[in-house]
């Protein structure tokens, strides 16, 4: 296998995409149109979408009368669902994976602070001072706006039983960690799925491309040159990896322009793009399988939907609206993990080293490479008959 041959074949595929209207539409124009359509339909018009706020209370000093009172009062607001967790680490993990909107950490001295205040309400010198920590989902504007004020209210009026105007108190609330307020709309929840959605159509393009070249005798013609089957496949892999990256960039620019501003830092964006690019391998693999079992380019278009539809409906943003069974089925598809990783990185602001992101990256990488290898073998065995 030679790099120059691979690049020559990749260059040929890029020219096809630029010059053939059908390819240009599906690969480049369609993702942009789709993103703009969703953005304008569900972004600016959709506005903020209130949701049920799941808050975990971490009691570092164990459950006490004061912490129970805090939880009861928090629940009594009717705005949040409260759960108790024993340690901050598991709470942070649940938060980064989107299972919670906020975490409130009651320090080990919490109960002592409350009791000291009740015993000596007018003697601040005898209070045990404590600070409550709040961690919020970066992508949730509602959480950022509501939770700190609710916590403050519950702490003063509920637990300590004083007026909000009282200046000195033994309990204070830390500045909420990692808060970056942004508008939350339906589009914000859809946006990460658009990256996978756009890329999945590559299956159809790869299948059409290989079946057309086989029908026209071009595949055989290339194979009577010193180029090998491996060169042909590598040419496609290189061309579609670059196309996948270009698609991701276009979708990113579109969603950004439409108001979805990922909260990820530079490393998060890079890893997000990397995951989308690796996902292209999976689509090339499915494309090769489709080409192997299709007798013509026309048939390839239809058959490609066998692989397209499940990924579209169960593995992208559409899956969020489906039943729990359908969502569970989505876990068998690489697209699900692409969307999940991008949601964690771009919407929830998860670290690139968080367990969720690393797991998603591993699943996408391994499954994509396996599907590509299966595609190559199937095409080699049945694709050129």
């Amino acid at each position, binding site marked *: 296998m*030679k790099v*120059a*041959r691979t690049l*020559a*074949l990749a*260059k*040929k595929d890029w*020219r*096809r995409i630029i*010059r*053939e209207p059908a390819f240009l539409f599906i690969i480049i124009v369609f993702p942009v149109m789709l993103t703009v359509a969703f953005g304008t339909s569900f972004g600016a018009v959709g506005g903020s979408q209130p949701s049920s706020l799941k808050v975990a209370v971490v009691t570092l000093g164990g459950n006490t009368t004061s912490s129970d009172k805090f939880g009861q009062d928090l629940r009594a607001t009717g705005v949040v669902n409260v759960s108790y967790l024993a340690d901050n680490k598991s709470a942070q993990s649940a938060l980064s994976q989107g299972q919670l909107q906020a975490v409130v950490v009651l320090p080990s001295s919490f109960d002592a602070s409350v009791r000291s205040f009740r015993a000596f309400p007018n003697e601040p010198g005898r209070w045990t001072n404590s600070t409550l920590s709040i961690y919020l989902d970066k992508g949730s504007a509602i959480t950022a706006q509501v939770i700190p004020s609710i916590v403050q209210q519950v702490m003063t009026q509920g637990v300590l039983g004083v007026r909000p105007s009282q200046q000195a108190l033994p309990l204070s609330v830390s500045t909420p960690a990692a808060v970056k307020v942004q508008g939350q709309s339906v589009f914000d929840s859809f946006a990460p799925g658009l990256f996978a959605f756009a890329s999945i159509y590559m299956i159809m393009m790869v299948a059409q491309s290989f079946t057309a070249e086989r029908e*026209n*005798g*071009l595949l*055989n*013609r*290339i*194979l*009577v*040159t*010193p*180029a*090998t089957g491996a*060169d042909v496949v590598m040419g496609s892999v290189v061309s579609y990896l670059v196309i996948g990256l270009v698609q991701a960039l276009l979708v990113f620019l579109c969603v950004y322009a439409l108001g979805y501003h990922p909260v990820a830092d530079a490393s998060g964006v890079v890893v997000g793009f990397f995951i989308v690019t690796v996902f292209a391998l999976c689509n090339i693999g499915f494309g090769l399988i489709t080409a192997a079992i299709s007798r013509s380019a026309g048939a390839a278009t239809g058959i490609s939907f066998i692989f397209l539809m499940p990924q579209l409906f169960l593995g992208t943003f559409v899956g969020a609206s489906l039943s729990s069974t359908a969502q569970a089925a989505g876990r068998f598809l690489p697209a699900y993990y692409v969307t999940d990783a991008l949601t964690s990185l771009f919407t929830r602001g998860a670290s690139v080293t968080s367990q969720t992101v690393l797991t998603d990256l591993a699943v996408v990488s391994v499954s994509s490479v396996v599907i590509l290898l299966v595609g190559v073998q199937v095409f080699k065995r049945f694709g050129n008959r």
Partner: protein
Amino acid sequence: MQGETRGGSVEISIEGLTKDYGDVRAVDGLTLEVSEAEVFGLLGPNGSGKTTTINCLTGTLKPTKGTLRVGEFDVQSQGEDARRIMGVSPQETAVYSYLTGKENVRLFGELYSVPRSLLGERVDYVMEKVGLTEDAGRRVSKYSGGMKRRVSIAMALVTDPRVVLLDEPTVGMDPQARRAVWDFIIELKDKGKTIVLTTHYMEEAEELCDEVGIIDHGRLIALGSPAELKVKSGAKDLEDVFIQLTGRRIREGA
């Protein structure tokens, strides 16, 4: 394994080639040799086994039986080496319609690893030889059938190959284009290239070929120079030779 024939050292050797497609025997024990710097014509009606023979030579098809050598290489065990010295223009006009004529030719030069410094010059040369210089920058989708076939020939020859396989090279060409291709083939022969072409244009075979093999139902039924075959059969042309050998006209099919 290289032997000698009347034209010099053997460049292509086919021995006992048999190719079956299920119950159908497309080529039946074909044996022939082509010398260096020779133009060899494989003649026969459609379905006679010409293209199957070419495809076995290129390694696209695996023979049922027999051995094939191109240059010093065994096609089956040293396929990549054999393909490196061959230029092939297949029967179907396999060209990329979304590329320009020049881009198609250049792509094949790159697949053969023609040095970048030589490639531009080689592309321009072959495009001129097939009469497509003016249309080199147009997309092939805008070409006529004859023009596409000329691009296909240019793609086969851009590497300046030692051995050239041309399967029905002038089908669909107008007389002027056909003449240009014939001139190019003669020029290649003068440069010492070994050329195998299949055709059912008898005048093409008579004009170009040093030796022809007439093939029918997968079997070689006559072998010799056009003049020898005509004398031997007492025929006025190769079409007549074929009729005398098979009782049919060549265009009636196998």
